[in-house]
Every structure is written in structure tokens, then in C-alpha cells.
């Protein structure tokens, strides 16, 4: 029994010796954010892209527009986004009580910022030989829609499915949107849904 106790008493001694052996503790006192510049590791900072959007505007004909977007990656799943979108708003003038409320061939431009969160990430393969990482993100936007001579607060909520290649990406998105431009609100043409395809590269 004594021998056994003596042997067990070596246990903390072994742990002490083991802790002493780990002496390479690195304790720097200067920190910098981001990895760039440290031993030349390339970093994916943001996604820049262009695309086409198809808008189904309530009580107006559907239309095709263009979209430019940037997504700045804050973490694995979170990103901050900004976008500019331009599309024709209507073809024919809208007359109400004898007055032209919306002139013919007005255009709508949207300048908005927002954020996204990748709720799902996975891997897709089309032919079984090569596979592509993808993620499905929920996105929200706030900004302003400029329509003709008036404007209003723009809000949107949707999702984006992004296929991520090493040097480029392709995304398909869908969203619902609304603007509080009172000129459009009176005609009930201030909201709708849109879907689009965009592609771009990393930088």
C-alpha cells in the first residue's frame, strides 16, 4: 500500500514537469486587426459584383433592372452590404383626378445598405467530379429609392443563395421591398418583390 501511495504521489510531480516543459509561450504586446500584411497571406475581404434583377411591382408592369453590390465580410457568416440598383419604373403616365401623378417612362434608382447572415452553408456538385461551396444568407436593406423627382425610404428583406468559387462567385437572390414615397403610396405602387442573378469576384 505504501508503495502504491508513493507512486501516486508522483502524479502531481509529473504534471508539474509537463507544465514546465511547455515554455514556448508567445506573449506579444502589439495587435493589428486583419491578417493582410502579416506574412503575405491573401485574405478575402469583400465580394464585388453586378447583376440583373426582375421586379414585380404592385399594380404596375414588371420590369428588368441592373444591380451593383458589394458585400464586406465581417466574419464567417456575417457581412455588411451596399448596393445600387437602377430600373425603369413605368411606361405609361398615371393620371389621377385629371393630374399626371407619374409621368411616362420614369426611372427608379435605389441606394441602400444592409447586412446579411449565412444561415446555411454546404457543398454542391453538378457532375459528381467537382463540387462548389455555397451558402444561403438572409439579407436586410435600408436606404432610399429615387423615383422621378421624388424619393422615399426603401426597406427590403430577402435571401441570397451564393455559390462560392475560389476567385469568383455567383448569387441568386429574392426579396420583398417597400418605399414610403407618398406620391407612390397614394397610387399603391410603392411595394413589390424582385429576384435576380448577380456574379462577381473577391477582393
Amino acid at each position: 500500500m505504501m508503495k502504491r501511495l508513493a507512486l501516486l504521489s508522483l502524479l502531481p510531480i509529473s504534471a508539474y514537469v509537463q507544465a514546465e516543459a511547455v515554455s514556448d509561450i508567445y506573449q506579444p504586446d502589439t495587435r493589428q486587426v486583419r491578417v493582410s500584411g502579416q506574412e503575405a497571406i491573401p485574405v478575402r475581404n469583400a465580394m464585388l459584383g453586378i447583376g440583373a434583377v426582375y421586379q414585380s411591382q404592385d399594380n404596375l408592369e414588371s420590369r428588368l433592372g441592373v444591380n451593383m453590390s458589394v458585400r464586406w465580410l465581417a466574419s464567417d457568416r456575417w457581412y455588411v452590404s451596399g448596393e445600387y440598383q437602377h430600373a425603369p419604373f413605368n411606361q405609361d403616365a398615371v393620371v389621377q383626378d385629371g393630374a399626371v401623378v407619374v409621368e411616362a417612362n420614369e426611372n427608379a434608382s435605389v441606394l441602400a445598405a444592409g447586412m446579411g447572415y449565412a444561415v446555411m452553408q454546404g457543398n454542391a456538385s453538378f457532375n459528381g467530379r467537382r463540387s462548389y461551396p455555397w451558402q444561403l444568407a438572409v439579407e436586410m436593406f435600408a436606404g432610399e429609392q429615387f423615383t422621378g423627382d421624388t424619393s422615399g425610404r426603401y426597406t427590403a428583406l430577402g435571401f441570397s443563395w451564393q455559390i462560392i468559387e475560389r476567385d469568383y462567385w455567383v448569387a441568386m437572390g429574392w426579396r420583398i421591398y417597400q418605399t414610403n414615397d407618398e406620391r407612390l403610396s397614394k397610387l399603391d405602387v410603392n411595394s413589390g418583390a424582385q429576384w435576380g442573378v448577380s456574379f462577381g469576384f473577391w477582393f
Partner: protein
Amino acid sequence: MLGPGNTASRLLLQAALITTLFFGTSAYAADAVYHLRKGPGAAFPVVYDISSSSDLSLQSAQGSWVRVSDGTREGWLPASVLQPGKGRSAALVWFINEASEPGLWSLSLGLSTDDSYEFNLAYAMANEVALDGRMRRASSGLAEWQTYEIGASFPLQRFSRLHWLGYAGVGVGSANGYSDRWQEAGESTSVTTLSVSTDFVWQLAQRFDLRLRLRAEQAFGGDDKVSTATSLIWNLAI
């Protein structure tokens, strides 16, 4: 079977077990297996198993994941499991694990009951005080107004994931002739603003929180109006 007479053998067996417990585990930790994944996330499948003692070079980083390669195979690892070794210095491993955490900046966007939208950029300083820049703008039809403010926010109380913040700031504002924001519509207005607000913060994730903001603003200029608003704010640490 060990009989009562084989005490020495039993002690030798126990010594071997203790030795294995400490030195065996240590040897395993020094030569662990890295599970390399197809992409930067736990949802991606494991494509290779590589010994941690391999000569791994770092190819790129995305968030808290790094892409590594041994020359013929490559894949993604959580930066937190990466240990110093061939191709990666202790300084580099420390940097990836510690310095790429959420930074001192945070970006917010919000929607208010006064029909405005707002963007905030905050920089954290000492004692949890943050320097806060805020832009608000509203437009509806032809009427439009905007304010630009700078101020400081500070914690008032903390309850686990819930925070309570205060803010005070000064700024400038302008409205066009269609807006009655600071005086009756008819001509453009420029004002100086003094505002206070309090945020009820719900920390939903390490980088993300949702805020309910109650705000009061005193304008100097125009009709010297006081206005109040409630906002819903999304805040992201970057």
C-alpha cells in the same frame, strides 16, 4: 490474473498506466490529426486528414477559418485548432487566433418611427465608451431632411445578454422647403441639434445585436422644435 503475491507486477502495471496517461497523451497532442474541410465552415465535408506535424503552409483566411496546404492536398481548418509548426510561426498562429476577432468598430442601420432611416458608425474607446457618428435621413415624396451627429455612447447597465446604453451628441441638420421637420413648410431650414438617446440592446450573437432606441432631439434654429422617435437598430461589430 494477478494474484495477491504479484504486488510488484501490479505496481508496474499502474506505473505504466500513469506514464501512458501523461506522456502518451502529450505525444498524441503533439501529433494530432487535422480534419481539412472543403470550405470555411463546419458544414463543409472533411476532404483530408493530415497530421499536425506536416509541413502546412497557410494559403488564405476567411473569418476564423484558414486554408492550408501541404503541397499536394489543401483544405480549410478552424484557426483555433491550428498549432505552430512547419510553415506557420507562433506569431502567425497567435495573430490569426487573437487579432482577427471582432474589431473596435461597429456599424448600425435602423428604421425610425419618424420615417427616417439611419446609419451609425461607432468606435470603441476605453471604459466601454464609444465615439459615435450618426446619420439620419428621411424623404417622402418631395419633402426631405437629414441630420449628421457626433457623440458618445456609454453603458448604463448590463444584464447578461441585455445591455442598456446611453448616448449624447450634437449635430447639424437641414430640410428642404417641402418638409415641416423644424418649421412650417415653405423654405429651406438649417438647424443645430442636441440629442440624447438610450438603447436597449439584445446581444444575439458575438458580432450582432438588436437595439430599441428611444431618442429626443432639441433643434436650435427654425421653430426650435423638440422631437422624439423610437428606432429599431441592427448593429454589427466589424
